[in-house]
């Protein structure tokens, strides 16, 4: 079952790298990211800045933990929660006809938002998150558990 082990390792590393990559531009440009958060029109104005300040660092920390294989149960749960929230926000805005730049990897808002592409991409990220979840939480027997330790 080595191939399965490497597959799960790869998905976790990829998810961690994605979260790290997603955090960089937002950390560098907090004002632009705050504007994107505001454009989603989901949060009350009083929460926009605090989310724009803290969310990129949460993404970055989760990315680091996933890549390092450290605190995996907590990191995987939070990463999946974030991915679900992002996906739900896109669906919610699509349903009410609001076309926004997702601000997922860049804080630039030039060009038309490509909501359908964002949804496809976020669906793939959800699958990655689910694979990482399986790696951490699936029931394993004693010997098998030892063999699958990474």
């Amino acid at each position, binding site marked *: 079952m080595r191939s399965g082990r490497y597959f799960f390792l790869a998905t976790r590393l990829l998810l961690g790298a994605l979260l790290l990559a997603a955090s960089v531009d937002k950390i560098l440009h907090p004002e632009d990211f705050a504007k994107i958060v*505001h454009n989603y029109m989901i949060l009350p104005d009083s929460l926009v800045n*605090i989310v724009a300040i803290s969310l990129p660092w949460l993404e970055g920390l989760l990315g680091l933990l996933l890549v390092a294989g450290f*605190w995996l*149960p*907590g990191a995987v749960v939070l990463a999946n929660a974030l991915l679900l929230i992002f996906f739900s926000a896109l669906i919610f805005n699509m349903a009410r006809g609001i076309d926004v730049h997702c601000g997922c990897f860049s804080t630039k808002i030039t060009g*038309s938002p490509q909501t359908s592409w964002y949804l496809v991409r976020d669906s793939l990220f959800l699958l990655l998150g689910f694979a990482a979840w399986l790696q951490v939480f699936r029931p394993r027997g004693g010997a098998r558990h030892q063999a699958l330790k990474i």
Partner: protein
Amino acid sequence: MRDTEGRGVFGLNTLTHIKSAHEPGRTKVGSAFLQGAAILVISLAISLCVNALRKDGLPLKGDWSPKAQLSGLQSAEEPVVTLDEARALFLTNGAVFIDARPAEVYLSGHIKGALNLPSQEFEEHFSEVMAPVPPDSLIITYCDGESCTLSKDLAMELSARGYGHTRVLVNGWSVWLDSNLPSETGGK
């Protein structure tokens, strides 16, 4: 690398380690809860410290009112135009109205005579749409919804291109319709 339960970190998993031979599923949930809480606290602490130290840090509670969002607008007039002012300017042909929403939304209904320059496609359409509009014209941009930022973004872009008399009618399309002012569908 650590194992998937991240044993030994701040003692969070000592309990997990003891119980794991009997209840691996339940203890991982417990670990996830504790670690998740710790991750949230740590990331929040880091983000607040960095935000407090950096020059371009944000206030924890921002002012997202239309007026505050237009504070950077270089306009000779008050950036936000009231509906009464907009109505008077419309009736006297005193301003050029520009719809900042996407083309398909504009075509389904807009202020009568308004041009369409979607703020998200500003670069592509600026030259074509603004060619007949002299830079000293009074311009009123609008979109739809109290929180809609398209009209503000468009006003900022136009201001940066030398249109120094640009104003915004906040929630323009809705308030215009509510007042039964002239509108039309389709393109110009």
